[in-house]
């Protein structure tokens, strides 16, 4: 299995807050050493590797994970789903709900 973690640098050069949050949770949950590559999608540089990977996979949000194994390639843009399906572990329901909202901002509108 090969896991690529793509995080974003904002147009103003600041690190993306949600990417920092996911990085912190990867560390906290002990998964950082399972990440094979960390790549930056730099909004100031449309040709940065992370932006290229996002285009290749049709991803329009960051952070996200690209997981490659014998079954193929899967992309996860929600942390708790990555943890559930790749790490075979569970996050708390509160964190899962927050992840869902972060990646699906319309859900608050129900």
């Amino acid at each position, binding site marked *: 299995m090969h896991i690529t973690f793509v995080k974003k640098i904002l147009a103003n050069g600041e690190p993306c807050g949600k990417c920092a949050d996911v990085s912190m949770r990867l560390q906290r949950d002990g998964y950082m050493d399972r990440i094979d590559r960390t790549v930056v999608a730099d909004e100031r540089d449309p040709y940065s590797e992370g932006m290229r990977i996002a285009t290749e996979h049709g991803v329009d949000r960051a952070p996200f994970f690209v997981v490659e194994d014998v079954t193929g390639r899967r992309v996860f843009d929600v942390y708790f789903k990555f943890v559930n399906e790749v790490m075979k572990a569970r996050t708390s329901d509160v964190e899962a709900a927050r992840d869902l909202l972060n*990646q699906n901002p*319309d859900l608050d509108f129900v």
Partner: protein
Amino acid sequence: MDNPNVHIQLHEPTPEDILLDAASRFASDKIAISFSGAEDVVLLDMAHRLGIEVGVFSLDTGRLHAETYRFIEDVRSRYNLKIEMLMPEASAVEQLVREKGLFSFYKDGHNECCGVRKIMPLRRKLSSLDAWITGQRRDQSVTRMDVPLEQVDKAFSTVDHTVTKFNPLAGWSSADVWSYIRTNEVPYNPLHDRGFVSIGCEPCTRAIGPHEHERAGRWWWEEATQKECGLHAQNIIKIVNR
């Protein structure tokens, strides 16, 4: 023809078509309408007229307007419905309030509170359903411009369980909705008469002016941070066109 959206209606099934189709494809205990206590009452009226048997649920965050609770009750008796009120998990609300107080959303943003009070109960409910029906429309916000009539709900689907989402009103405008309400004498939330367009929780909803967008009535204090997780589309388009 004086309806500016007639071109959409000519090419799309009607909301009634979508409701009938949805009800025919899913068992009545596996599909439900999500009713927010606002304009989506139109869906309940349509389902009632069509004689469709589907469940109905509302997310009772505990922070709705008194008018909304009364309206939900009016709808329940008018249509003789069993509306399932989904409550947040008490321990999660208690922890949030204990740690951050009752109005943390004004300072920390609304996602944490919405997560606890809406998304957790919704996720719990959708894990027991195969499909749900919403009142989402393309004209409600820029993030809804591409809302399809039917979609696999990727947010709530898992590897083992696919959830389908129907949005029968996707192609309707607000004017279409209100035309239906007036024509069919559908009951509506009295807050609409006081300038509320989008109606959610009381602390996070306000009346808007005639030229303000619907979204301006919700979480108005944090507008600038709404799209922080998005990757700039312009940049991606540049790559594709290179």
